């Protein structure tokens, strides 16, 4: 129960099964309190002061109990608040002041929507229509005022979309996306930050896996591989592009995610051990006589190594977890390092979405590396450089504009990818860089929510805004790629 005393002190009494607590918490105000009103849902208290300011207070959980806390204020009118009337279905409210002015505010977005002053006397009562389209006010001269209110999307502001907002029931201001709930008193939370973050996070982890495989693979295919093998390898890798991403998402969610969860230590061991296994195999290969026959076929020779390592990783996973992680890596991580493990996580998305963007990067990079003029390569080799030196010092710089745009194209593809992230991420709009947590991307969010959104509602329009932002993302990356490519091309155009 809340009470206000004449000298501007707010009293907060607790009432529970035992009865009323007689020692209230006292909150002094600098100005005398003229009005108090609960906002829709009963979670927030609006306090109107003599100087025209309205403050929003909420019960916020602390370590021991709940504390009435100042959230935000609204200070458009400058004369004493006489009446506060809240909307019936939203978190908006109208405030009438002593001189007959009426001000409309919206709590979540902290916006002042309108200020009107048609009455000349003090307004002592107001009423909203159900949809908040009409406002009725009566002043001291018994004059009735009927306002038609055209106020469709008050819950959106720059701060709501991109800033931290202190929502009802939360301990602190935060970036939250939660567009709908089952109750009418619900406060929609439209922060686009977690979605944008999720988009970039998914793309980042995908690129982490895709760039090394695609670029290194392209280097080998273009310059070192036997032409006969290249004829089959290039189309094989490019065929990945033809695989519908819904199949990849399906496999990621239903096959890879449980597999990774069951063999977590093995998966990490595989990622770490594979490069060493390749180099070890290469060192052992030196002992093989008559090896020049196989020159250009190294990739084929390494396929059994990859298969062997995958088999090995699957089998050493459980012993590894026994040895280092007390038998269960997931439990160990959450106990020792505080990392919670989500089955649908960034690792799974990174692997599968990386798989989806490899052909894009590979194809462009390979073409570029392959079309580096032969006279450059021959010249370099003739001057005594080794094949690797030629690759690093001559071929890569010459092809760098295209390599760069290949990576950017891959990134653009990863940002816009929908089905894989939709099916393999758990769609949790979190702000967390952890590789073991899911995310929700802009594209997946649109796919999930557009069928449910009320047409022309705020939610619906924000989804279109999300689509625009998605476009901006890809536009920025592509433009950046193009600009840098032009610069690099100019630099190497003399070759």
């Amino acid at each position: 129960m809340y009470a206000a005393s004449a000298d501007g002190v707010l009293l907060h009494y607790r009432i529970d099964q035992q009865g009323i607590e007689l020692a209230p918490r006292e909150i002094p105000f600098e100005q005398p309190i003229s009005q108090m009103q609960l906002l829709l849902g009963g979670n927030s208290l609006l306090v109107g002061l003599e100087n025209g300011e309205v403050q929003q207070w909420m019960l916020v959980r602390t370590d021991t109990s709940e504390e009435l806390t100042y959230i935000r204020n609204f200070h458009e009118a400058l004369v004493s608040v006489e009446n506060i009337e809240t909307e019936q279905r939203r978190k908006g409210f109208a405030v009438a002041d002593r001189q007959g002015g009426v001000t409309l505010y919206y709590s979540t977005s902290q916006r002042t929507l309108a200020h009107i002053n048609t009455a000349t006397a003090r307004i002592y009562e107001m009423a909203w229509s159900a949809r908040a389209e009409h406002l009725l006010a009566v002043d001291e001269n018994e004059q009735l005022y009927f306002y038609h209110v055209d106020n469709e999307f008050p819950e959106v502001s720059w701060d709501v979309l991109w800033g931290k907002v202190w929502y009802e029931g939360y301990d602190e201001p935060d970036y939250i996306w939660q567009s709908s709930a089952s109750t009418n008193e619900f406060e929609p939370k439209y922060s686009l930050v977690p979605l944008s973050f999720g988009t970039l996070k998914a793309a980042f982890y995908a690129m982490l896996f895709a760039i090394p495989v695609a670029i290194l693979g392209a280097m080998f295919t273009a310059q070192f591989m036997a032409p006969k093998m290249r004829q089959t390898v290039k189309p094989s890798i490019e065929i990945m592009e033809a695989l519908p991403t819904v199949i990849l998402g399906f496999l990621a969610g239903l096959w890879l995610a449980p597999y990774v969860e069951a063999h977590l230590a093995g998966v990490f061991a595989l990622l770490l051990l594979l490069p060493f296994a390749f180099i070890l195999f290469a060192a052992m290969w030196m002992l093989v006589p008559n090896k020049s026959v196989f020159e250009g076929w190294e990739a084929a020779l390494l396929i059994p190594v990859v298969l062997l390592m995958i088999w090995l990783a699957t089998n050493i996973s459980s012993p590894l977890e026994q040895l280092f992680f007390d038998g269960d890596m997931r439990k160990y991580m959450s106990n020792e390092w505080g990392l919670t493990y989500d089955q649908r996580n960034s690792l799974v998305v990174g692997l599968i979405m990386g798989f989806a963007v490899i052909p894009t990067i590979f194809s462009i990079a390979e073409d570029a590396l392959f079309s580096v003029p032969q006279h450059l390569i021959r010249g370099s080799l003739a001057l005594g450089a080794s094949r690797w030196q030629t690759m690093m010092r001559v071929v890569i710089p010459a092809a760098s504009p295209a390599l760069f745009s290949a990576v950017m194209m891959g990134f653009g593809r990863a940002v816009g990818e929908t089905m894989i992230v939709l099916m393999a991420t758990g769609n949790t709009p979190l702000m967390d860089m952890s590789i073991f947590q899911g995310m929700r991307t802009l594209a997946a969010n649109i796919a999930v929510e557009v069928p449910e959104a009320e047409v022309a509602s705020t939610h619906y329009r924000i989804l279109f805004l999300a689509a625009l932002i998605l476009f901006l993302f890809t536009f920025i990356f592509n433009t950046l790629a193009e600009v840098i490519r032009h610069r690099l091309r100019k630099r190497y155009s003399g070759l």
Partner: protein
Amino acid sequence: MIRQWFKSGTPWIWLNAGAVSIALVAVFGLLFLIMVRGMSHFWPADVHAFHFANAEQSMTVIAEEIESETLPANTVPNIQQTEGDVTRYLVKTGNRDILGSDFKWIYDTDLQSRDLPEDIMVLERIEWGNFYGYLTAVYENGEPVESSQTLWSEFEQRLQRVSEIREQLLHLEKSEIGSINYQLERLRLEQKRLELDNELTDSALQEIEQQRQALDSEYQALLKQTSELYRQINRDSIRARVMDGSEVTIAMERSSRHGSPIR
């Protein structure tokens, strides 16, 4: 020497080759995975008998193995063993009408042995999914059939007969009776059309009525035929023993075909 080898760049070339291998394994592995997962539905799986025994009781589970995994015992719920590894199998036991579910997890903690029973029968049914069990007798009109043939060929013969009758029934009901219904509907529309056009004379009405009666008697004849076929299809049934030893009766009319691991 190693240092020189690294300086020559050869290991890095091999590393590049490894990237290609990873990509190739990923592509073909994925295609292979999709194929294996998709195609396995077209081959019937082996039916195993898992024999369990501990101090108190013994039990046999007859089922197809779907998948198995080996886990540290302390991470597996619902078992007593806490040391070492436990292998658990997801098996398809079928018999949903008897057991309540088609699939179950079994653990190798009390597993004594497993084998492939020779005379197991897998029956694909129209309702309740697959049936797994042993054929014990063939019945006709509730009476056990005495026959010179083996039980199995007797059963197969009768199943063949049942499926032939089912096809006849399908033909009668879909095509023949269906076409009569179509003609009756046309007659009704014709009558309606005449009525709306005010051309429904007594003679026209009589003609329509006549045609309708002809169709009706045709229908009655077909109905007699189908009810006879229904009597025939319903006479065959079998008795079969399920894995816990109890016997059940299955109407052959309700089973579409039998599965393969029968020798």
